[in-house]
Each structure stands twice: as C-alpha cells, then as structure tokens.
C-alpha cells in the first residue's frame, strides 16, 4: 500500500549538512506532487552538537512535521540516541556503523558513513548527502533519479554524486523501496520558510528599505533580504545596534520610504523608545518580532510564544499600535504586505509577531502575488495655505508630505501644534491626544471591515490558539480525527472583540506555547471568555501533532 503520510528525520552534528538535507528531502517530496512541512532543530553553536531536520509529507496540505518518523538517518551516535524512540511502527533507523560498533540495532540498517565519507575532501560536510542517498533508496528512487537531484541541489556535484552512490549501494540491499509513497499530479508548489514568506510579502507590499541587526531567530530575514536586495531593488542595512536600526528606519520613513525592522525579544526591547516615537511623530514603521524562549537571552534557537504581552504593549505613552500574528507561511506572506499598508494608513508602529517555528520552518505555499496589498498612505494634495504635518482631522489621520519639498515638513517627538512645533499649551496637548485617540477609533473601524480572525471547521468543540501553533492544532485535529472549530485571531491589537461575540457563551480549549498562559489571559481579559482547559508547551520545541491530538482528546 502506498503511504499517505511519511516522515523523514536526518540527524547529525552542526556542519554536517543536515539542514541542507532537510531542504533537499523537501524538494524530492515536492517533485512527487506531495506537500511538505519541514522543521529544523538546531542548537546555538556552529559546529558539533546535534542538529536534525524533520521532513513530513503527504498528498494533502500538511501543516506540521511529525516527531515519529518512518525513516531516520542518524549520521552520528548522538542522533541515534536522540531519535531511537522516534520511529513509527515499521520505521527504519539508518545509523552510522562507524560510530556504533558492536551494537545491535532493532530495525536498524548500519552504514559506515564515516569510513566512506573519509574518501572525500570535506568529508564531514557530506554526511547530509549520505542521508539523502539513504532516503532515495528507501523510497525506491533509482540511482539516476538520485543523481539528478544531487546535481540540481548541490555544488561540487561530482564528489557528492560519487559519495551518494556509495551510500546508496551500501543501504540498498536492506532498504531499497521499503516505502512506497503516494504521489499526486497536483502542481509542484514552491517550498519556502516563514522568513522568506514575510520578506517577499513585505517587498510585494512596497518595502523600500530594511534595517536590522542580527538576532536569532530573526536573522534569516536580514540574510534573505540582503541577499536579494538587488533583485528587489531595495536597500538593506545592518547598523551598529537595534537602536540604530529602528531610528534609521524611522528617519528614512519620514522621507517617504516604506521601512521595516526585525529582531527577537531582546533586540526589540531596545527599540521601545523609538516605537513610542513612531506613535508621536506619526511615522509608520513595521517591526517583525521573531520569538524564542525567554525571558532575556533565553534559548536562542528554539521556539516559544512568551512575548505576547510584551508585543502588545510596546512603547510608553498612549498611541495606536497594531499587532498581528500569522498562522502559516501563506498568511505570513499576505499579512506582511497588509501590515505594511496598515502602518502607512495609520502612521504608527506595527508589529508582526511570529515565532522561530514559523520563521525557520519550511512548507509549500500556493501564493497569488497579485492578491497582496500595496502600501499607500494618505498623501497631502494641497488646499491648505501652509502644509500642516499634524493637521487636526476628523479621523485623526493627517495627510503626509515628504521632504525635500517646497513646503516645510516638521516631524517631532515632542507634543506639538499642527505645524509640528513643540507646545506646552494645555488646549493643544489635549487636542493632539484626542487626535491620536481618534486614529485608534478609525483603526478599529477599519479592522471591523477586515478579515481579522480565522475560524477553521464548522462543528465540534472550540479551540482558541494563535500564531504558528495554529498549524500544530490543525494538523493534530487531522491526525487525531477530531472534529473541532479552531479560532485564531490574526490581529491581536486592537483586539477584534467583535468577532468573539459569537463565542461568548462557550468555554474553549486554549492551546499556546507559553508557561503562564498569556494568550489565555488575553482572551479572558478582552472577551471574558474563560477557558475550560489549557494546553501549554514551553520546552522550546513545537508541538508534535500526535501528542497534541492526545492532549486535546484528554480535555475534550
């Protein structure tokens, strides 16, 4: 029988090409018309340690990796130890026999990865190719097919092909075609990471200049956009600090550029003073917050949703803030463009809150680029005797003009009059406060017209979740055969309370990656809906759908 769901894990040290192997495995499955979800687990180190890539695929739109694998390729002893309990029944462990002499491995296929690789230069770096060769054999690919894949996906193709053939031959007797995977004729969808989705979405929406200081797990945005700056015709700068990044971004935005920054919690914390500046000066800027386990330095390369409170309340003083969190790579793409437009429309700071799990995982996406929003602020079209940057308008939004210009344009961090000069007048202070408060009202009105909450499913018990945990929940429901309604607010600030009216008599299960249940508290605070059960994970690892399904069943 052909397998619907198939999970492949490649494990090894950092530097062994494991992450690349995950991507290539994804490519192989995609070519079979399957849908892929790939999660990378890596440590905060450069070489050594233990990395692994989990690649799950199916012919339906799969939304999570699974921790139980059909095939594990453990290129070192540590990988074996780590994953030996992660096999499905019928699962096979390909292990490095050089590293595990004299051990009896049930369901195991030993290969002398080390010995074979030593025949090649940079032997360490090739182990990932070996994992791919084993996968190819296991799913019944021919040597020619494997050769094609390696040629198209790797540099130094010759050595890599030779090495792969040796591994293939070594495992084939025990492994060949052990698994027959279901294929489909569906079109081959591109496979991208969350960071690529956000980056491309922002560019589609009008991003002109990106300023960022590296910080895991937000760095992939910087790397991707820097690498493609010329393709996209945008500017990318890595300055001396996060404080420099955000202030430069705001400076550039005051000249009319659509700007964006990104960081993780610690770096974002340093930007708070400037977020408040964005609120006062009414200069739009979009910030991408990539969460990892906190507080403080925490656990840099893992995932968590512990920054929610922080994200919702950044910057001192009162002004409109916009915070949204996408659930999937596709949503991340469209949302990045939409948020860029939102901050431009309301001339304030917006935060796209997301997690390592979304940023660094990869999946297939079905994207129609034409459907993205295009950021368009309200521009001044003349009519006043003198241009007034902070003109008091009905909805609080003052049309923009950007210098260099015939008329003077004054942006400021001080409380100000309409022209933009500092004021201490009680009347003017009150008026400007009211103006910004009116923007908040206009923003809420706008959100009411928008799609701010996703509801998946039509019947069954109610589950509230948000961000990429939504994908875990959806996949858990599928694999656990659970009928349920899943509610995921995309916008978190202003919170779309109006969409929750329909649930106000219900008691949902709340699922989140947090120890203190910040999302559950937010729901309770804003809607007065109390959870009947909470499922929380806070060990840095994303949910496994099967385990999550189990947990859901327990509280149903």
């Amino acid at each position, binding site marked *: 029988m052909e397998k619907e769901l198939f999970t492949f894990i490649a494990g090894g040290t950092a530097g062994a090409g494991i992450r690349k192997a995950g991507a290539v495995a994804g490519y192989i499955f995609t070519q079979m018309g399957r849908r892929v979800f790939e999660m990378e687990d890596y440590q905060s180190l450069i070489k050594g340690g233990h990395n692994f890539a989990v690649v799950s695929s199916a012919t339906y739109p799969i939304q999570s990796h699974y921790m139980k694998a059909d095939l594990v390729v453990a290129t070192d002893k540590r990988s074996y130890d780590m994953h030996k309990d992660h096999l499905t029944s019928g699962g096979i462990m390909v292990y490095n026999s050089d590293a595990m002499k004299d051990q009896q491995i049930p369901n195991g296929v030993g290969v002398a990865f080390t010995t074979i690789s030593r025949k090649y230069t940079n032997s360490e770096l090739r182990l990932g190719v070996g994992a791919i060769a084993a996968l190819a054999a296991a799913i019944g690919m021919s040597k020619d097919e494997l050769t094609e894949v390696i040629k198209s996906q790797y540099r130094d193709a010759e050595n890599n092909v030779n090495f792969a053939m040796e591994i293939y031959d070594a495992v084939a007797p025990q492994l060949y075609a052990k698994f027959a995977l279901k294929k489909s004729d569906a079109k081959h969808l591109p496979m991208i990471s969350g960071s690529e989705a956000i980056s491309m979405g922002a560019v589609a929406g009008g991003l002109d200049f990106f300023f960022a200081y590296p910080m895991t797990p937000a760095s992939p945005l910087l790397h991707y956009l820097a690498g493609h700056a010329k393709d996209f015709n945008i500017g990318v700068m890595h300055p001396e600090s996060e404080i420099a990044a955000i202030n430069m971004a705001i400076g550039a935005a005051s000249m009319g550029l659509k700007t964006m920054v990104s960081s993780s919690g610690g770096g974002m914390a340093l930007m708070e003073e400037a977020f408040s500046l964005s609120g006062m000066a009414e200069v739009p800027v979009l910030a991408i917050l990539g969460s990892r386990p906190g507080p403080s330095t925490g656990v840099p390369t893992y995932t968590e949703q512990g920054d929610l409170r922080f994200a919702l309340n950044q910057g001192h003083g009162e002004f409109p803030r916009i915070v949204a969190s996408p659930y999937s790579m596709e949503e991340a793409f469209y949302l990045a463009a939409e948020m860029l437009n939102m901050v431009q429309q309301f001339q304030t700071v917006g935060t796209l809150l997301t997690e390592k799990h979304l940023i660094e995982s990869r999946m297939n996406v079905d994207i129609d680029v034409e459907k993205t929003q295009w950021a368009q602020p309200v521009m001044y079209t003349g009519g006043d005797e003198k241009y007034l940057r902070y003109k008091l308008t009905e909805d609080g939004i003052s049309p923009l003009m950007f210098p260099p210009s015939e008329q003077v*344009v004054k942006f400021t961090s001080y409380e100000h009059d309409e022209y933009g000069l500092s004021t201490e007048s009680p009347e003017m202070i009150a008026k400007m406060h009211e103006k910004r408060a009116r923007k908040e009202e206009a923003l809420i009105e706008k959100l009411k017209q928008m799609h701010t909450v996703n509801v998946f499913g039509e019947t069954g018990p109610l589950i509230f979740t948000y961000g990429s945990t939504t994908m875990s929940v959806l996949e858990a429901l599928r694999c656990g055969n659970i009928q349920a309604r899943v509610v995921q607010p995309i916008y978190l600030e202003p919170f779309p309370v109006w969409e929750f009216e329909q649930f106000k008599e219900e008691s949902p299960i709340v699922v989140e990656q947090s120890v203190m249940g910040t999302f559950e508290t937010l729901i309770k605070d804003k809607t007065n809906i109390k959870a009947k059960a909470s499922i929380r994970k806070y060990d840095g690892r994303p949910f496994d759908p099967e385990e999550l399904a189990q947990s859901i069943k327990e509280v149903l």
Partner: protein
Amino acid sequence: MADDLTTYEENTWCPGCGNFGIFNAFKNAVKRLEMEDGISRQNILITAGIGCHAKIFDYLDLSGFYSLHGREIATAQGMKLANPQATIVAFAGDGDAFGEGIEHLIFAAKRNADMTVIIHDNGVYGLTTGQFTPTSPEGFKGPSTPFGSPEEPINPLKLMLVTGATFVARGFSGRLKELTDVFVQAMKHKGFSFVDVLQPCVSFNDTYKLYNSKVELLSQPAANVDEAMRLTEQTEKLPIGVFYQAEAPVYHENLLGNWNPTVQRATRQQRLQSIKSLLEKA
C-alpha cells in the same frame, strides 16, 4: 531675528545663551549656500536630539525630524539613505552625542556618512538643569555630582579623528563669521563632517570669558591626522576652524552605488515579477 528662516515658535533660550550664536551662524550659512552654491533650503534637512541645543529645530523653518535624546545621528543617517540628494544636518548636544548616543556618532564617522553633525558643546546637560556631561572637566559640580565629577572629560575632536571623520572642525558660538564659514564648509564637504561648537551656557557653565580669551582661528587645516591630533591637544590657546579634511568614499555610495531609493523605486509590478520568478525557483 524674525526672518524667513525663523518660525513663529517663542524662543526660550536664556538671554545670552551661546545657542543664539549657533542659530544665527547657521541661518547665515544656509543663506550663503543658497546664494553661492545653489543648495536650496528645501534640500537642507535638519534633525536634533533633545536638550537646549535641540530647540533650534523648532526655531529654524526647515524641514526635518525632531528626534530623541542621543538618536539624532541615527535618524539623520536614515534620512540620508532614503534620499542621498538631500543635505542633512544633525544638531546635537554634548550630553546627547557624546553620552547617550555616542555609538551613533562613532559609527557615522566610521562609515563616513555624508552628513554634518553640529555639537552645541556647553559641557553640561542644559535642559535637565546642569548635570555634568562627557566634556565637563573633572571636579565639575552639578546636581548629580554635588561633590564634583569623578571622571576625566573626553576630547571629542580626537575621538572623531581616530574613528574616521573626514571633516573635523571646532567653532565658537561667540565668533559668528568664523562659525558661519565652518558651517558652510562642513555642509559642502562630501562625507562625515563634525563641528564641535564651544557654546557657553550662561546658566550652568558660563565659559564666555575663558573662550573669548583663548579662542584663536587656525590658518589652515592640518596636513594629516597626526598633526590634527596634536592641534586638539592645545590648551593654552583653543584653535577654532577646520582641523582636518580629507576625501574618502561615502557610505551611501558604498552601500547603494548611485541608486536613489526615493527616486528610483521599483514599481509594484516589478516587485511582483521578481517575487514570482523567485517562487518559481523555490
């Protein structure tokens, strides 16, 4: 003072404050740049930190951004990168640029960011009522150091010379003509221009007498950094004028080449096209 470069904002500097000299010299410089060099005032964009010095932002009727304490040089770099055609001037306090935000000053110099920084160097946090700053002498008594500052001051010019500024000058707010000259040269210089203006604060650090007796115009810039370094060490006389000037590649050109992000923006269709083709390859 009510001229067309001055706004309607009430001026609240203390009578006699050195900031007036900076204000007037700067307005003169703008007029000279307009007349002599064809740089229009619309193209001169300003930014400022927070402090007495920064009030100049409200008084000058020029476009720009009244930034945060210590961040004006970051704001300025963002503005410049957005539109390299603009002439950018950041007004900064000594507390501002040598204290809170010294990293931005150093990196703007290191990058040779094409902009001008004017330091209103009064050796004191004026607006917050007289605390010591990085340029206050050791022993300076202010409300946060009532028993005297326990730190040596920095030498700002030296700092700029070693970090890569390509135009390093000192002015004195009491010498209007010389200060105007320096401002004009600084703004015309392509690269990072640093002007440390000795500015008496009549309320908390009245240095008029000292500076009037010591200030002396340099006849010409030093021939090299070493010589300029030695000039900054003089204390008998306080040289004013341009200490050092050099030509070097500027940051926005290193980063962007000749591309102007404001003027040469990609259209929506171009963007969608490039994304489509990337997606096709993914």
